[in-house]
């Protein structure tokens, strides 16, 4: 019996999304049961990593098959979900999905900063956005998308914030590493361009000669 198909059958019937570890425990339980079937025994000591690999293979299989549903991993829990294209019909089936209203633009911006920079203090978020975020933070905290994760070791020991598991579920992400462009945004260090582009390439100022010229003319005008 192939491992991935055993896992498929489990996830097909599971009442809730399952983690690789929970799946492993089920395999062990099946192998250890008093009346365990002989074919269940080989999977007694299967490793988490093997399970994850099998699940990833299974997800790929489903993707290749291009069915109306796929195997998704959200917040490290695996489950079968329908493809978004079929939303219109599923909405008719289950009624409007019980989902809170969409986030506002400031809400999404603030959430993005927290997601990529966590743990982050409120002051740091405000510095990036250039505006106060009190109201928006309150909304995000109330909706359970972010939470206080500790305190920064700076003066005043302000709270630091991070995203919750609900955040991953809300956006359908497997983990924080799956955030779009995570490697780029996690720790942005905008390097100063070599040779001070801002000053030399006509960026902000007229060239120095012009400035000098204007300066020479000035005394004349004032006389």
């Amino acid at each position: 019996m192939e491992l991935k198909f055993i896992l498929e059958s489990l996830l097909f019937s599971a009442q809730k999304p399952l983690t690789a570890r929970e799946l492993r425990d089920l395999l062990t339980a099946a192998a250890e049961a008093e009346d365990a079937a002989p074919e269940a025994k080989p999977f007694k000591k299967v490793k988490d990593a093997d399970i994850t690999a099998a699940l990833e293979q299974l997800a790929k299989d489903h993707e290749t098959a291009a069915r109306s549903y796929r195997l998704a991993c959200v917040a490290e829990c695996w489950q079968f979900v329908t493809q978004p294209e079929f939303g219109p019909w599923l909405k008719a089936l289950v009624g409007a999905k019980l989902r809170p209203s969409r986030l506002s633009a400031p809400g999404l911006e603030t959430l993005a900063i927290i997601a990529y920079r966590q743990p982050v203090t409120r002051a740091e978020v405000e510095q990036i956005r250039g505006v106060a975020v009190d109201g928006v933070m309150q909304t995000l905290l109330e909706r359970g998308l972010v939470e206080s994760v500790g305190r920064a070791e700076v003066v005043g020991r302000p709270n630091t914030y991070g995203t919750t598991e609900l955040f991953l579920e809300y956006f359908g992400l497997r983990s924080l590493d799956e955030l779009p462009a995570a490697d780029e945004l996690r720790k942005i260090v905008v390097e100063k361009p070599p040779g001070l582009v801002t000053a030399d390439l006509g960026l902000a100022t007229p060239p120095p000669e012009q400035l000098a010229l204007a300066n020479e003319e000035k005394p004349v005008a004032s006389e």
Partner: protein
Amino acid sequence: MAEYKVKFEVFEGPLDLLLYLIRKEEVDIYEVNLTKLASQFIEYIEMMRVFDLEIAGEFLVMASTLMYIKSRELLPVDQQIVVEGEEEGEDPRWELIRQLVEYKKFKDAAARLQTLEATQENVFPRIPIKPEIEPDTRPKLEVSIFDLLGAVNNILKRIAATRDDGRNIFDDKWTVSEKIEQIIGVLKARENVKFSELFADATSRSEVVCTFLALLELIRLKQLVCRQNDAFDEIEIGRAPVVVAPPVSETAVAATPEAESARHS
């Protein structure tokens, strides 16, 4: 009559307005003419004032930064005052551009999150119906406090043997009330849990003790019951049949000393 004011909400903040102005110029952020941008920004604030819109303080701070940058550039290089402690690296123009670039990246990231949000709205999980299986009606055996103590003793022995040589002293990372929350959390997700599972992640003696005290507390509060399928079976912990739930966390904290003394006896 109360003064009627329109709140200016088109732009999220000064950085947002600056990005908008830069986009209008159709130039790269790195090549923007900050002097010109400063004039446009101030024009905009002027306009907000004319329309009697509330101008947020952040806009004024930005306006003054821009004015500062502009004023510096009006002076020829050799006459610019070198502010003490301000090195070349702290060019205010660069500071501002850096901030703009960073803000722009997060704005783009927010847009991608929005796409994900919209997609996720159309994704539906498969939720099968729970297969109907006869509940296990075998009478379960009551578990006494001595069985529990025996079980926790085994776990403590295991911990002592494997992880803790007694020489290291750790912070008390856990409190009983935290462990209570944790146990309640586990049992929200599942019908019952094996005794050993509760301690599977414990890394220190004090954590085992905390968890055990939390367990005793919950049993005392009639939140949990312990059962065994057969004598010498592993102890199972389940939710108690529903009675009116007392406010758990407060009582638990107050009752900790009591549980503490139970531990010493």
